[in-house]
């Protein structure tokens, strides 16, 4: 047992994550061809616009379920909404944000793009602290919009006229996943601008622009899109109570900032917060790179059901970061 634990703690989880992501990518992008349908309430971008998708991203059913008149909320519609959310919550409660770091196909694509940049030795970008704080709010705004717009399509909000149906489903219309993921099954049909109405045109054009920014953005900034992802905001609800957790033994932290440096999203609190034990922040994707980079024995620790499964160790750190660059 001790040996297994030491083995895991000294392992290179990034490498493991790399292969895991590939497997998850195949499952979520091509699984449909093998009759895999994991669930329709997945907290990850398994985009149903992609024919091979092995599941469905929850944002799609969520928007559909919200697309109903007020009266139906108190009836079966509300129950379905609740049921759907419960299923989603179960997924969220178990793996928390690891859906982002380990399973999300769109996240995986971004990581691949990052790999490409690394090979080219082009410098990455980092946001300044204030910019970061400003930008991270966007995901909550998007989440709000993706809830309110479907309601506004089927109801009149604040005595405004109902929104055009062409705006529906609002997030899918601008989500890069809709355009990018089908490309992997050879389906280019999502690349279009719909000129039929002004709304349709705006939304589809926005989708194309966002996709363009997605590609370039994630080339220069690691996990560029994740900072704006409403799914990440939605998953954050569970991260404080989830079974999978990232804990920090604050007394041991030297605030060396290694964890912050390697964090793809750029979460400063991971290094600077020496008060909270549960350290999962709203932008965190539980990639666990920070645990790898922490040289303090047992300072950062991943636990599942309160059982530590992976923690930072000195030996592990040296294995991963130093001894491999021994010089001749």
């Amino acid at each position: 047992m001790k040996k297994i634990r030491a083995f895991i703690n000294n392992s290179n989880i990034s490498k493991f994550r790399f292969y895991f992501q590939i497997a998850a990518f195949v499952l979520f992008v091509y699984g449909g061809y093998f009759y895999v349908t994991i669930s329709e309430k997945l907290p990850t971008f398994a985009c149903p616009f992609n024919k091979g998708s092995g599941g469905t991203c929850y944002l799609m059913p969520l928007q559909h379920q919200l697309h109903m008149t007020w009266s139906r909320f108190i009836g079966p519609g509300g129950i379905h909404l609740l049921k759907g959310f419960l299923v989603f919550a179960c997924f969220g409660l178990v793996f928390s944000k690891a859906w982002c770091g380990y399973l999300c196909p769109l996240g995986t694509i971004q990581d691949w793009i990052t790999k490409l940049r690394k090979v080219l030795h082009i410098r990455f970008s980092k946001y300044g602290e204030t910019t970061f704080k400003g930008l991270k709010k966007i995901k909550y705004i998007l989440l709000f919009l993706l809830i309110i717009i479907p309601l506004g399509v089927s109801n009149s909000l604040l005595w405004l006229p109902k929104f055009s149906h062409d705006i529906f489903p609002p997030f899918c219309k601008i989500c890069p996943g809709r355009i990018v993921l089908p490309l992997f099954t050879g389906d280019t049909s999502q690349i279009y601008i719909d000129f039929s109405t002004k709304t349709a045109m705006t939304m589809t054009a926005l989708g194309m622009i966002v996709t363009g920014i997605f590609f370039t953005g994630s080339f220069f900034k690691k996990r560029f899109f994740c900072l704006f992802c409403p799914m990440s905001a939605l998953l954050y609800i569970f991260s404080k109570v989830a079974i999978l957790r990232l804990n920090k033994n604050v007394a041991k932290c030297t605030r060396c900032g290694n964890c912050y440096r390697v964090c793809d999203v750029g979460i400063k609190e991971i290094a600077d917060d020496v008060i909270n034990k549960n350290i999962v922040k709203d932008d965190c994707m539980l990639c666990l790179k920070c645990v790898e980079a922490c040289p303090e024995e047992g300072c950062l620790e991943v636990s599942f059901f309160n059982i530590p499964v992976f923690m930072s160790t000195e030996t592990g750190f040296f294995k991963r970061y130093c001894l491999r660059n021994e010089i001749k």
Partner: protein
Amino acid sequence: MRLKDRILIAIFLLFFAEGASASENIWLSNTPPKKISKKIRHGMHGVSFIKGNDGREKKILWIRSGSFPVESQYANCTNTKNPVIFVCSPDGKLIKGNVSHGLWGHVLTFEGNMEGFYNVYLFERFVEEETLNIVVAKAEVLSHKCSNGHAGMRKKMLHRTFNEEIPFEIVRERIPGEDFHTFLSSGDDVTFKVLLKGAPLEYSKVMLSTQKRWVNNLKTDINGGAAFQLVGDYYPRFKEINKRNIHNFLVTAEYTVKKSGSYQGIPYERIHYAGTLGGSYIPSKTMYTSYLYGLILLIFVMPAVATLIYFYREHRKRPYKEYAFREKD
């Protein structure tokens, strides 16, 4: 579908429309008469609902007669007094369907909220002019709510036939990749299969007519199939485009055999089978969409952002950064 194809089909149809049979067919439609359209709740896939006296919601179909979807009358009666109503729910159980006569003509209602296709048939037999008429009006009513989940959807998409009970039947073959969310749209190739007592029927006359009176006649092939391409007949002005505009089509199939016998004591010389199947489709998804512009925009945005970042980085190489203050009080 390219414009050229469309024109070709149109010309083709113009020639053959001449010979269209004009006999009155009975068919089941899910489109309510215009004046009451507002009182009806419209569900997915054009399914209509009304509230019964007991407050429960029922699915409703209108019995109409005529060969063209729009012009067909909302019938006040059927050919016989007591047609057989046959409704099979998605799980294969027979359920009760009612024919009633209301303000809105003859309607067929039934209850059920299961996921999948309800097969609804109105089946009549009567002798007229020494001919035994066997009339089967069929409708496939898809009941689906995404919130119910999509478990087993692929299986539920398969069509079912009832050879014992329904002697003559038109079956719409599913288009590739079709599921509960698929709307047929113009440009799709749809095959209709005609079955006589379960066996594919060759040389049966099949006619497909659309809302705008496009008509196409075919004879079934050896497999009993007749393949049509749904012709685009929605060309509104640019400002009025509604991509979710649902238009109907109607498929009829006929077949006559010489066979004498007697039905309810009335002798006949031949049997005439007539089947109908209504359906609906929407404008082509690619109508007024531009792949090229999308691609151009996408390709333009990527380097544009990259250039911005490049200049930003160059700008950062300058050593001094000014702090700016707002002078206003």
